[in-house]
C-alpha cells in the first residue's frame, strides 16, 4: 500500500475544499499523511483528523512564506524522507506546480500536473493541448509528485477519524540560500464570491461589457457563481487580472460557463472549453464562441442578462 503525503500550504481557519479533495484522493491510494506549512488553527486540525491524516509534518521554521517556492520544496523533500512517502500531492495552483517542480528535482521524482483523477495504482488522468486530448500518465520513479486540479472529486471524510501526531521536520541549512524573497505583499479585497478556479458556475465577461461588469455580477450572485473575464476586459482594467480565464489566465472546468460579450478567441477557449455546459451571449452571430456553445443567444448582454437575473429571482421566490 502506498503512503501519500498531502501538502497543505497555509490552511487558514478551515481547510479549503481543494485540500479536502486531495485528502480524499490520497486515502483511496493508501495511508495518508499531511505536510502543513503555516499556522494550524483548531478547525483545520479537526478537518485533517476527520479526513484521515495519520500524521502531520510541520517545518522547523515559520518564515517559509517570506521566500518564493524554494524553501517549501526543501521542507517537503525532508517531509517525504521523514514519512517514507511514495506519492506527494499538492494543489494545482501556479505555486503548487512550482513547488512540485522543484521537489521533483530534489527527490528524483516524476511530476505530473493538471491531474483530474488518480487510479489505485498511481496512474494519473489529465487533459492536454487545451483540453483536446485526455491522457493517462505515470511516474516511472520510486516517488511520484502529482498536482491535482480542484473540483476533481467530492470530498468525503474518512470512515473513522484519526488523532494525528505532529512531527517537526528540520529544514536543511541551505533551504533559503538561493531563493527569491517576498519583500511586500498586498492582500486583495475578498469578493465574497466563490473562488474562480473552484466555482461550479462561472459568469465571464469580455470587451462587450464595455467597462460595466454590473449585470454580470448580479447574474453571478443570483446563481452563486464566480466572475471570470477575457484578456480584453482585464487589459482594459475593468477587472483584476486574477479573473482572466484562458491560456495565460486560469483554466476552469465548471458545470456551467456563461460567456457574455466575449468573441471566443483560441486563447480564451483554451481556458474554458472543458466546462460541462457553455452558454454564450454575443451580439455578433459570427462570433467563434457560438461554435462551442451548448446554448447561444445572439443578442445584447445588457438586455439578456438582467432579464435572466430577474427571472431566476422570480423562480427562486
Amino acid at each position, binding site marked *: 500500500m502506498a503512503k501519500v503525503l498531502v501538502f497543505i500550504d497555509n490552511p487558514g481557519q478551515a481547510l479549503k475544499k481543494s485540500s479536502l479533495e486531495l485528502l480524499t484522493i490520497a486515502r483511496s491510494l493508501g495511508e495518508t499523511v499531511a505536510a502543513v506549512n503555516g499556522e494550524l488553527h483548531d478547525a483545520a486540525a479537526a478537518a485533517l483528523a476527520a479526513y484521515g491524516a495519520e500524521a502531520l509534518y510541520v517545518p522547523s521554521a515559520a518564515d517559509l512564506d517570506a521566500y*518564493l*517556492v524554494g524553501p517549501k*520544496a526543501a521542507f517537503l523533500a525532508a517531509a517525504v524522507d521523514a514519512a517514507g512517502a511514495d506519492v506527494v500531492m499538492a494543489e494545482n495552483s*501556479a505555486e503548487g*506546480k*512550482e513547488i*512540485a*517542480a*522543484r521537489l*521533483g*528535482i530534489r527527490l528524483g521524482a*516524476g*511530476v505530473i*500536473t*493538471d491531474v483530474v483523477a488518480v487510479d489505485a495504482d498511481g496512474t494519473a488522468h489529465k487533459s*492536454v*493541448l487545451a483540453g*483536446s*486530448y*485526455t*491522457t493517462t*500518465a505515470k*511516474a*516511472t520513479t520510486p516517488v511520484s509528485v502529482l498536482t491535482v486540479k480542484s473540483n476533481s472529486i467530492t470530498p468525503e471524510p474518512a470512515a473513522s477519524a484519526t488523532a494525528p501526531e505532529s512531527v517537526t521536520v528540520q529544514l536543511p541549512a541551505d533551504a533559503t540560500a538561493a*531563493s*527569491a524573497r*517576498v*519583500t511586500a505583499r*498586498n*492582500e*486583495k479585497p475578498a469578493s465574497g464570491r466563490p473562488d*474562480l478556479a473552484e466555482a461550479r458556475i462561472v459568469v465571464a465577461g469580455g470587451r462587450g461589457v464595455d467597462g460595466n461588469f454590473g449585470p454580470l455580477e448580479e447574474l453571478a450572485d443570483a446563481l452563486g457563481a464566480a466572475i471570470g473575464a477575457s484578456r480584453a476586459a482585464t487589459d482594459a482594467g475593468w477587472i*483584476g*487580472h*486574477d479573473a482572466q480565464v484562458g491560456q*495565460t489566465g486560469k483554466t476552469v472546468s465548471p458545470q*456551467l460557463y456563461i460567456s457574455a460579450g466575449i468573441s471566443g478567441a483560441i*486563447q480564451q477557449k*483554451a481556458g474554458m*472549453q472543458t466546462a460541462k455546459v457553455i*452558454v454564450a*451571449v454575443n451580439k455578433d*452571430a459570427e462570433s467563434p464562441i457560438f*461554435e*462551442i*456553445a*451548448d*446554448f*447561444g*443567444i445572439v*443578442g445584447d448582454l445588457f438586455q*439578456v*442578462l*438582467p*432579464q*435572466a*437575473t430577474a*427571472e431566476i429571482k422570480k*423562480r*427562486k421566490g
Partner: protein
Amino acid sequence: MKIIVLVKHVPDAQFDRHLTGEANTVDRSESILSELDEYALEAALQLIEARGGEAAGNKVIALSMGPAGAVNAVKKSLQIGATEGVHLSDEALAGSDAAATSLALAAAIRHLGADTPADLILTGMASTDGETSLVPAQLAERLGLPQVTFAASLELDGGKLTARRDGDTHADTIEAELPAVVSVTDQINDPRYPNFKGIMAAKKKTITTLSLADIGVDPAHVGTSGSWTVVETAEARPPRTAGTIITDDGDAGIQLVEFLAAQKLL
C-alpha cells in the same frame, strides 16, 4: 550583461494539434516560436538596450532545444533582435519530459556560461504545448539559482532584481540576487515584431548547434529513457459542437433560464 532567453518551437495553437507515435508526443510539423516566449525576448532586449545595447558588450542569447525545425524559433528570435542563437539538437532528446528537458537545458546554460556566466535566464511563463510551467522552476533547482516566476514587471538595479507578481489573493513584490532564472507573463510588455532591418541583420548573426556530447550530457539521462514520467494512453476528445442558437426577440433571458432549469443548473 549576458542574458540567455529560452525559446521553444511549438505547434501553432491556431490549428488542430495532435499527439503522435508510441510515446504520445506532440506533432511538431506546423510549428512557430511560442508566443509566450516573445515576452521573455522583449524583456531581455529592453534590459540590454537600457544598458547601452550590444555596443556596450551586452548580449541576448536565444537558446532552443528541439528537433531540426526548432532552429526556426532561433532564427525568428534573431530577427526580433537577439544577438546570438544556439540550437540544442540531438536525436536522443526526443520525448524528454520536464525533468529531462531541464537537465539538458541546465547543461547547455552551464556550457554557454563557461567563460562568463549568464546574469539572467529568461523564459516565458509556460510553453504553449506542454503547458506545465515546470521547466523554469526545475532549471532553477538544478542550477542552484533563485527563481522568480510569473513576473509581471522586472527591474534590475546592479546585481539585484525586483519583480511584481500577481496572485489570486495577493500581489507580491519579489527580490532576488543575480544570477537568477526568471519567467515572465504576457502582462510584462508588448513584444516587438521583426522589421525589415531586423530580418536582414539576422542573416549575419551566428547560430551555434550543440549536441549532447558538446554539453556533456549522457543520452540515457534525456529523451524517453531519461524521463521520469510516461504518457501511457491518449485519446482525442470529441470536439465540442454547436448547440441551440437563438436570436433575442425580447425573451432570450427567460429562454436562458428555461435552458438552465432543464439542465438542472439552477
